[in-house]
């Protein structure tokens, strides 16, 4: 377990990087898919469908060979674009789900479109997004294991390395690796539960 821990920093770096950029992509693409300009909506739709329609591992290899990025950024870019595309649907869905009366009321209050989004729509929409965002965090943790395939020394990579010199220990090593991923996921599960509680509260959080 301690030998595997050597790869922990890479796994966590990739996870945090993917999460930050993934949510960023999700919000940008989510807003863009609601743009008033048809061309922006269409470009966004192509982006989202492309990344949802092809599989993450294919995208990872594609980016690895096409974009000359440092390896760790290859992993972060691939995971964040892929999951950002999935999560943009959540952002879009949540914004659309805010009742129409809210928009009308803020227009009646003479708010600018920016104020309307920032003060009225988003605070309500974000609460609807939170639980799903938490779930995707766990999915992203699982996805970080893929970066071992492009040679990044994460915990899966370290496990394979360790196994290649201890050929009879494969079962133990990979089982410990699974336990390690589960332990990493536990706080994320906790975060998800917490987010679910926040968003199910009847009062606005602001």
């Amino acid at each position, binding site marked *: 377990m301690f030998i595997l821990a050597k790869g922990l920093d890479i796994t966590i770096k990739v996870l945090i990087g993917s999460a930050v950029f993934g949510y960023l992509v999700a919000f940008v693409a989510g807003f863009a898919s609601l743009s008033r300009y048809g061309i922006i909506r269409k470009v966004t739709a192509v982006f989202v469908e492309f990344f949802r329609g*092809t*599989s993450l591992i294919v*995208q990872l290899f594609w980016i690895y060979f096409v974009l000359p990025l440092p390896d760790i950024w290859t992993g972060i870019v691939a995971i964040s674009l892929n999951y950002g595309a999935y999560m943009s649907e959540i952002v879009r869905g949540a914004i659309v789900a805010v009742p129409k009366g809210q928009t009308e009321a803020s227009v009646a209050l003479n708010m600018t479109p920016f104020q309307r989004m920032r003060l009225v729509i988003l605070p309500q929409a974000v609460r609807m997004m939170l639980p799903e965002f938490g779930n995707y965090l766990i999915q992203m943790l*699982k996805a970080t294991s*893929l970066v071992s395939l492009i040679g990044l020394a994460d915990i899966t990579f370290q496990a394979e390395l360790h196994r290649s010199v201890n050929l009879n220990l494969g*079962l133990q090593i*990979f*089982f410990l690796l*699974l336990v390690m991923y589960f332990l990493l996921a536990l706080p994320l599960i906790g975060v998800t539960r917490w987010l679910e509680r926040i968003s199910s509260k009847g009062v606005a959080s602001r």
Partner: protein
Amino acid sequence: MRDIINLWDWDTLFDAFPSIFAAMWLTIGLTFACYAFALVFGIVWTVLRRIPIRPIYWLVTFIMNFIRTTPPLVQLILIYVGLPDVGIILGSITAAILGLGIHFSTYISEIYRSGIESVSKGQWEAATALNYTKFQKWTKIILPQAIPPVIPMLGNYLIIMFKEVPLASAIGVSGMLLMANIYGAKHLEYIEPLTIVAFFFLLMSYPSSLLIKRLEKKMNRRFEKKVGSSDNGKEVTAS
């Protein structure tokens, strides 16, 4: 290897096409095999969780959560590389079916559960009141109502499975992705073969996701009507 980034070349594209196209059938076949396994194994989880003994329920739920929150890639490697240590030697395709099948069966089982729970309590009571045997109750009352609403969700998982199957290339299943990587390693041209793979995935998963969306709408309408009519015309969405 990575420094050699050639520009797009159409000849390479046509040269790489046949071997990847041939591998497509394995990818598709494997998808259906894994999916079938997950559908069946999902029943096992669902049945185990319905055993009315608390510790068994906790244990099964824990195992399911463990499988669900750990990477399928590692599970595949564990089955393919780890199991031979205890004398279980599996081919790469069998290992892939087992690994991906078990991983996704935990998700499928949740869908079954939601379907079963969506059958209203009155239906259970009515079946009991009519003196149905347990078998009759399930086959005649519960399952016919539990399964149709979840068919679109199950279909979604077929598409998700299709996109997860290239993971099996990591344990040497020669599907589209592995063939593309082999071609790339041989000719030092990765971009074209990988683009073909991406194109094939898009070509198959996008239309099927549209199909599922339409099916979902249709189902929603049907069940809304059914549920709504028994509920004083109130609109209730079957979930």
